[in-house]
C-alpha cells in the first residue's frame, strides 16, 4: 500500500486533473488514467487505482456523471462525463490554483529586492 499519490500531489489535485481531462471528452476509467499519464509525460507517478476513489468523490458531489457504455475494445465500461456544475467547479479551482501558483512562484523567484 504505497501512498504515492498523497505524497506527490496536494489534496484536490487529482480531482482537478480528472475534471480537466474530462472537459475535453468523456472517458472511461482506464482511458482516463492513460490520458493523464500521457499528458503529464509520466512526470506524475499516479497509482492507477487511486483514480477510482477520486471518481467516486466527484460523482458524489455531482461534478461528473457516469453511464455504462462500450469501450473501443468492446468491453462494458463506465464512461465519465463532466456536468455543468463540474465545469464551473473546474474553472473556479483552476483560477484559484493559478493564483496560488503565482504566489508560490513569486516567493521562489530569485531575490529582486
Amino acid at each position, binding site marked *: *500500500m*504505497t501512498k504515492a499519490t498523497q505524497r506527490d500531489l496536494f489534496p484536490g489535485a487529482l480531482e482537478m486533473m480528472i475534471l480537466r481531462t474530462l472537459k475535453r471528452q468523456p472517458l*472511461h*476509467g*482506464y482511458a482516463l*488514467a492513460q490520458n493523464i499519464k500521457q499528458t503529464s509525460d509520466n512526470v506524475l507517478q499516479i*497509482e*492507477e*487505482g*487511486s483514480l*477510482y*476513489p477520486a*471518481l*467516486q*468523490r466527484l460523482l*458524489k458531489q455531482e461534478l461528473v456523471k457516469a453511464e455504462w457504455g462500450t*469501450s473501443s*475494445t468492446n*468491453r*462494458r*465500461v*463506465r464512461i465519465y462525463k463532466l456536468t455543468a456544475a463540474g465545469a464551473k467547479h473546474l474553472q473556479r479551482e483552476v483560477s484559484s490554483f493559478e493564483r496560488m501558483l503565482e504566489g508560490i512562484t513569486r516567493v521562489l523567484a530569485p531575490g529582486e529586492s
Partner: protein
Amino acid sequence: MNHLRKLFSQRRMYLELSEEIQAHLDEKVDELVADGMSREEARQVALREFGNVSVVEEKSLDVWTWSYVENLFSDVKYGLRALRHNPVFTIVVLLTISIGIAANAVVFTVVNSVLLKPLHYPRAEELVALHQVAPGAEGLADFENGLLLSPSMYFTYAEHNRTFQSLGVWFASTANVTGLAVPEQVRTVGVSDGVLQTFGVPPAVGRWLSQTDQVPRGPERVMLSYGYWQRRFGGSETVVGQNITLDSRPREIVGVMPQGFQVVDADFDVITPLAFDRGSVILAGFGFHGIARLKPGKTIADADADLARLLPVWMDSWSNGPGNNPHIYETWKITPIIRPLKQEVIGNIGELLWVVMGTIGVVMLIACANVTNLLLVRVEARQQELAVRAALGAGWARIVRGILVESVMLGLMGGVVGLALAYSGVRLLVAMSPTNLPRLSEVSLDARTLGFTFLLSVLSSVLFGLVPALKYAGPRSGSHLRSMGRTITASRERHRARNLLVIGQVSMALVLLVGAGLMIRTFEALRTVDPGFADPQHLQLLRISIPGSLVAEPERVTRIQNGILDKLAAIPGVKSAGFVSEMPMEGFDSNWDQVFAQDKVYADNTIPPLRLYKYISPDLLQTAGTTLVAGREMMWSEIYGLQPRVMVSENLAREMWGTPSAAIGKRLRESPKMPWHEVIGVIQDVSEKGVQETAPETVYWAPLMENPFGPGPEQATRTVTFAVRSERAGAESFLNDVREAVWSVNSNLPLASVRTMQDVYGRSLARTSFTLVMLGIAAAMALVLGIIGIYGVMSYAVSQRQREIGIRLTLGAPRGHVLQMVLQQGTKLALAGVAIGVGAGLGLTRLMTHLLFGVTAHDPLTFAAVSGLLILVAVLACYIPARRAILVNPMVTLRYE
C-alpha cells in the same frame, strides 16, 4: 436521502465497481500484450500499477458512506453471521452472560429499591427520626431503638425546638374492631399532633387528624388506611362521618390516607390520636418513636444540638411525682443521635445487601473470565481468517473493532435475556418475601435498573472482548500466516492470558466459597444455641387482647384467659397450653423496668438496670419446653389470691445472688409502693431477641397482680400470646378447633398473629438464612464456572500438546509420567489461585463480621476446607483431558499432523 439509498444498494455498487476495475485491468493487460509482453507478465504489471484492488474498492465505497456507521453495520452483520455459524459457542456464552446479568440485575433492583430510591414522602430528604441513646442507663442497650421519647419529651421538643418545621411521636399497636362481620384485630398507629403534618402526605379522602382531635377525653376520631378502607368499606367515599367500633368504643372516621402510605416502617389499618393529657404526663414513659421535618437549611448536627439544649429544660419542666429528683436522668447521659428517616426505615439491612451485591458482582467477573477464555479459544481458531483479512488490507483497528462488536453483541443479547430472567427473578423474590426486608413492596424494575443492566452488558462485553482483540489483532498477526500449520508445542506466551484468567477465577471462587462457608458455620452455630423453647414446629401461637372497654374488671380478664386455656387444653391432640405477655422473638414492644431486691442496698441517685418484664401463666414453661432451673412454677390459686410470688431468669438470679438455687426465697419489687415478691422459681435464659443476641435478664410476674405503684385496682395482662403444644399445630382443622374454643368463651375476641413458633423462630433466623442462600447460590455459580474454566483451559492446553505428548509416548515415556506432567501444570494454576484467594479472602471476609455468629471471619477450618475442595476439583478437572490425551494412540496423533 441519497446516502441512505446508497447505503442499502451497497451490494450493487460493489459489483459495479468490481466490474469496472476488472475492465480497467483487462484493457491494460490487452494493451501490454499487444506491446509484446506475455499475458502472465502483463497481468502482474497491470496489478502492480493499479495498487491494492480491495483497498481501492473499499476506499471507493467509503466515499459514499458515513464510513464509521457503515463499517459498524457490516461488522454487526458479519458478527451475527459468525455467531449463527457457531451455535454451541453462542449458546454457552449467552447462557453464561445472561445468568450473570440476571443475578446482578435482580440484586441491583433490590439495592436500588431499598437503599437508593428516596422514601415515598414529599421532600423526604428533610425527614428525620428522633433517635437518642442513653449510655448511662444500664439495660437499655437491649432496646433496639435506643431510648424512645416520653410524652413529656414530645411536649418539650415540639414547643421549644428551633430547628424543625414540625415534630411528632407515634406508636404502633393493635385494637379490636367489632360490629363489622367477625371481630377482628387491626393494626393501629397512635399519632400525636405533628406526625401527619411532618409526613406531608395529603389524605385520599376527608381530612387529617388535627390538633382539635388530640384533646384528651374529647371526641374520638380516627383515620383509615387505604387498604382497610377498600377491604371493609368497599372504598366508599361516604365513609367520612361514619363510626367504627374500636376496642368497643365508637370512633368517628374523618379521613383515609392514600395507597402505599406507611408510618415509617409500620403498615397499619387505623390511625388513632394519642391525645396525651398534659395534666398527668410525667418525665418517664419512654415508649414513643419521634419523627420530624427539618427546617430548610438546618442540618442534623444543628438539630442534635437543639435537642441536647432542650434536655435540661425537659427535666426542669416535668417530674416523676413528688419526692423524685428529676435530674436523676442526667446519669443516663441521654444524647440525641438524629438519623435520616431513610436510615431508620432501612435499618441494618444495607450492609447485608451490599455484601450480596459485591458477591454477585464477583460472580459476574468469573463469568466474564470464562467468556474471555471461550473467546480466546475461538479467536485462536480464527487466526488464519484474521491473518488473511489483515493481509488483504483490513486495518488493525478494524479487526479489533470487529471482535469488540461481536462481543458487545453477545453482551447486549445476554443483557436482553438476562433482563427477562431478572424480571421473573424479582417477582419470585417479592413473592417469597425473604426476611423482613424493608420496603419490599417497593421493589420493582425501573429505568435505573434498565440503565444498570445496559451498562453492565456493555462493560462486561468490552471486558471480555478486549483481551482477545488486543491479543490477536496486533500488527504481528501476519506472522500467523506462516506459523499456522504446524506447531510442535504451544508457546508459553500463547497461554499466559488464559492461565492468568484461570488463576483469577480460582481465587474469586475461593473468596465466595469461603463467604458461603462462613455463613454455613454461622447457621450451624445458631442452631446449636438453646433458644429457651423446644420443638417449635408443634407449638401453635395466637394472640388475644381483651380491652378494658369490653371487660373492665381485671380479675375477669384473667378468668377469661384461664377459661380459654382450659378449652384449648381440651382440644383433641393438645398436650398442654399456657400464655405469656409475649413469646421469644415475636418482636412486640416489650415492657422493661427496674427491679429492687430486698437484700441489696441502692444508692439514692442511681437507677438500677432495666429488666425485661414478662407475665406468665402456669403450664407455659412445660408447653414451650422451657426448663425450670430451680424452684417451682406459680399456681392459679396463688395468682387469684394475689399472692406476691415472682420468678426470674437464670442470668438475673446469678447476677443478684450467685446461683439459681440461692435466689429461691429472696424477695424483690418494682417500686417502693409494691409489696415484696418472693422468688419461687428460676427459669433458663431465653433468647428473647433472637439467638444471636444474649438473653436479657428477665423478671416473670403473674398475669394478675396488685397495682405496683400503690393503691388501686389490681392489674391484669390484657394482651397475651397463647401457646398450644400439639402435633396438629398449624393444620387448618386444628385452627378451626382453636377458634371455636376461644369463641366458646367469648365470641367478641379476635385471634391475631396465628402462627407456629417455628414461623417466629424462622423469621428471627431469616437474615442469616437469606444471606446464606444468596451467598450459597453465588458460591455455587462461582464453583461451577470455575470448574468449567479450569476444565476448558486444560482440555485446550492438552489438545495443543497432543503432538508433543504423542512424541513423548512414542519415545517410550511411561503414560503415568505424562499424566503427572499435565496434572502438575493444572495443579500449579489451582495452587496459585488458592494462594491469592486466601489472601484476598482474609481481607474481604472482615466486611461480613456483623453477619457472623460463633465463628470468626478468619475461621481456619473454613479456609482450609474450601482450599482443599478447590484444589481437588481443579485436579479432577485436569485429570479428564489428561487421561484422554494419554489414551490416544500416539501414531494417530503423529500421522494426523
